[in-house]
C-alpha cells in the first residue's frame, strides 16, 4: 500500500480527541481568497466522483492546490496519495482534522449522500467554502440546515450537479422558459430500472475501513461490505436509488427549465416493485407522480418508463416536456442535452428581454468545478446553489417516502410540511442522525 503520512495515523488513532469545530473560529479567520490567490483545498471522500473531483482540482485547476486528503478507507487514501509528491498532502480518516486547519480555504465532499449535510454544516461553521456532491441531502431537515449554515456563515456552497453547465442545456432552458412550447403542463421523466443485488452476510469490518465513521449520521447496523464503495446508492437509507442518483440530474434541469427552484410539489404519489432477493432495497421498478396544484403541472418519474426513441441512439434517461403548443424530448441531465423533434432548441438564442440562462466557461463537470473556484474568489452565488439543490433533493426524498409509506403525501412546499399525515411528518421531518452527527 502507498504511504500514509504521520498525520493520518494521528487522526486514525485519535477518535476520542476529535477536534473542536465551533462557530467562534469563523470570526478569527483572516478572510477569503482574493482574485489572484491560490485556493487551498482538502478533499474528503476519495472514491468514484470524489476521486474525479480530487484529480481535477489537483491536476487541471491552476489556481487551486490540494493539500489534504481524507477517507474512512485507508486503502483509498493510499491510492490517492500516490498522485502526490512526498509531503505535498496530509491525510486523515476524520474530516474534522481538515476543517480544523487554518491553511485550508475550501473542501470537497465526495462522500455518500447521508454524510453531505453534517459535513457541509460543519465546514461552513469552520469557515470553509464547500463543493459537495449531489444529491445535496438525504432528508428535508438536512437540506434546511445546509441552507441556513451557508447563509449564516457566508460561505460558498456548490453542489456537484453539472447539468446547468452542459453546452446545450442553457439554450434548451431558454427555449422552454421563453414559451416556445407554450405552457408546460406535464413532464414525463424516464430512467432504467434500479439494480438488484448484494448477497453478503454481516461481518467484521476490515482493518483498513472505519465502519462507524462511514455510517456517521445513518442508523446503526452491523458492518456489511454490500453497503458501501459503489453500492451504497442501491440502499434507501444511503443513496436512495436512481431517483437520487441520475434522477437528481434530471430533476435539476427540470427545475431550471420550469422555474421551480424556489418551490416544490403539492402532492406526491409513488408505487414500486420491491426486489425479491438481495441486500439492495430500492424498488426495482418505480413510478412517482409529483403534482403542482399551484402551477397546473404534473411530473411523472418512471423506471423503466418510456424511451421516446431519439433519432440518434437509445437514450437511457431523460424527460419529455409537454406544452400547450408542442412537446420536446431532452435526454440526460448530467450528460446529454440532445433535444428532439424540435432540434432548434439546442441552438436557441433568447430574444431581447427574454429569459437568459446563466452559462459557464467550461462544459459539464469541469464547468461546475471552475464556477465553484471562481465564486470562492468573487463571493458570487454559484450556478448550483444549495437553496435550489435542497429543493431538487426534496423531490427524491418525497418520492421515496411515498413509496415507503405506501400512500400519497400532501405537501405544503412553502412551509415544507406534510399536510394531514402525522406519521409522514415524523418520517420526513424528524429524522435525527446518530451520536454527534446531527443537524
Amino acid at each position, binding site marked *: 500500500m502507498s504511504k500514509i503520512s504521520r498525520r493520518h495515523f494521528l487522526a486514525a488513532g485519535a477518535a476520542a480527541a476529535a477536534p*473542536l469545530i*465551533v*462557530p467562534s473560529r469563523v470570526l478569527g479567520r483572516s478572510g477569503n481568497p482574493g482574485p489572484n490567490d491560490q485556493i487551498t483545498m482538502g478533499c474528503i471522500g476519495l472514491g468514484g466522483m470524489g476521486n474525479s473531483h480530487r484529480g481535477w482540482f489537483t491536476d487541471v485547476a491552476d489556481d487551486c492546490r490540494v493539500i489534504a486528503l481524507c477517507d474512512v478507507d485507508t486503502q483509498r487514501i493510499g491510492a490517492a496519495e500516490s498522485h502526490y509528491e512526498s509531503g505535498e498532502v496530509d491525510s486523515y480518516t476524520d474530516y474534522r482534522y481538515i476543517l480544523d486547519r487554518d491553511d485550508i480555504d475550501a473542501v470537497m465532499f465526495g462522500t455518500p449522500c447521508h454524510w453531505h449535510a453534517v459535513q457541509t*454544516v460543519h465546514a461552513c*461553521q469552520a469557515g470553509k467554502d464547500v463543493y459537495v456532491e449531489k444529491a445535496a441531502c438525504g432528508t428535508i*431537515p438536512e437540506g*434546511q*440546515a445546509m*441552507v*441556513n*449554515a451557508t447563509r*449564516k456563515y457566508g460561505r460558498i456552497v456548490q453542489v456537484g450537479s453539472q447539468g446547468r453547465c452542459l453546452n446545450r442545456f442553457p439554450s434548451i432552458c431558454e427555449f422552454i422558459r421563453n414559451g416556445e412550447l407554450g405552457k408546460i*403542463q*406535464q413532464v*414525463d421523466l424516464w430512467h432504467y430500472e434500479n439494480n438488484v443485488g448484494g*448477497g453478503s*452476510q454481516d461481518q467484521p469490518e476490515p482493518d483498513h475501513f472505519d465502519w462507524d465513521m462511514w455510517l456517521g449520521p445513518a*442508523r*446503526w*447496523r*452491523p458492518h456489511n461490505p454490500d453497503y458501501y464503495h459503489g453500492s451504497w446508492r442501491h440502499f434507501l437509507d444511503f443513496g436512495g436509488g436512481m431517483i437520487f442518483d441520475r434522477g437528481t440530474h434530471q430533476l435539476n434541469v427540470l427545475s431550471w427549465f420550469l422555474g421551480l427552484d424556489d418551490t416544490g410539489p403539492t402532492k406526491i404519489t409513488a*408505487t414500486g416493485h*420491491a426486489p*425479491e*432477493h*438481495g*441486500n439492495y*432495497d430500492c424498488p426495482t421498478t418505480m*413510478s412517482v407522480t409529483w403534482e403542482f396544484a399551484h402551477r397546473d403541472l404534473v411530473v411523472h418519474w*418512471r423506471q423503466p*418508463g*418510456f424511451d*421516446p426513441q431519439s433519432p440518434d441512439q437509445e437514450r437511457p434517461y431523460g424527460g*419529455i416536456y*409537454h*406544452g400547450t403548443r*408542442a*412537446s420536446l424530448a431532452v435526454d440526460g441531465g448530467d450528460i446529454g442535452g440532445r433535444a428532439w423533434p424540435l432540434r432548434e432548441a439546442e441552438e436557441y438564442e433568447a430574444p431581447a428581454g427574454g429569459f437568459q440562462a446563466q452559462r459557464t466557461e467550461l462544459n459539464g463537470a469541469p464547468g461546475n468545478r471552475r464556477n465553484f473556484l471562481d465564486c470562492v474568489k468573487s463571493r458570487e452565488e454559484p450556478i448550483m446553489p444549495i437553496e435550489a439543490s435542497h429543493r431538487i433533493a426534496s423531490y427524491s426524498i418525497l418520492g421515496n417516502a411515498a413509496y*415507503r*409509506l*405506501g*400512500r400519497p403525501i400532501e405537501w405544503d412546499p*412553502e*412551509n*415544507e410540511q406534510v399536510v*394531514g*399525515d*402525522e*406519521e409522514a411528518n*415524523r*418520517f420526513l421531518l*424528524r*429524522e*435525527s442522525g*446518530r*451520536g*454527534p*452527527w*446531527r*443537524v
Partner: protein
Amino acid sequence: MTKPMRVVMMAIGCGLAVFAAQSAVADAHLSVDELVEMLASDDGSERLKARNHAAAFGPEAVGPVTALFDHDNRNVYIAAKWSLRNMVHHSARPEADDAEQAAMAEALAALLDEDQSSRVMHEALYLLGLCGTEDQVPAIAEWLNDSATVDAAAAALIRIPGDAGLEAMLDAVDGAEGDVAVSLIHAIAQEEGAAARERLEALTESDDDTIAEAATKALSIRDLRVDYEG
C-alpha cells in the same frame, strides 16, 4: 401534447391501472401463520407476495414476523423487516383510528427486552418513533443509558410528539458519560423548547470537557435549525 406522445402516455396509464388491479387482488386475507410461512419461503416471489400482504396485519403478527429477523436466510430477514414496516405504516395511516395505531405501538414496545437481538431492538425502536405515543416513552427511555441503543431510543423519542420524550432525555443526561452523554446532548438539541436550550447552556459549563464540548457544538447546530427561513 402531440398525438403520438398522448397515445404512449395513455398506454402507460393503462399499464399502471393493471398493476393497481393486481395489487388489489393480492389483498386476499391470509392468516398470520400463512404470512410467516410465505415470508420464510426460499422463493423470492413468495416472500415478496407476503410482504405486499403484510400491511393489513395488526399487532398479532408483530411477534411472529420479528421472530424471522434471525433466520438463516438473510433474504427472509429482509422480507420480514419490510413487512413489519408496512404493518406499522398501515397502522399509522391518516384514516386509521387511534386504537389501531396504539395497539401496534404497544406490540412494538413489548419487543424491547435485553434478550432480543440487536436487529429486533433497533427496528422496534425505529418504528416506535413513527407510531409511538407518550404511552411508550417510559419503555423506550429505559434504553437511553446503553451505548448500543441510546441513539435508536433517542431518535424514537425525538419523533414522538409531546414533552415526555424530552423530559426522559433530560433525566437520562444527568449522570451520563462518554458516548452516551454525547448522543443524548445532540438528541436534546433536536428539541425546540426552551427547556432543551437551557439544559444545553448549562452543560456547556460542565467540568467534563467531553460534555461541555458536545453541548457547545449541539447548541450551534440547534440554533441553525431553529433559524431556518426557507
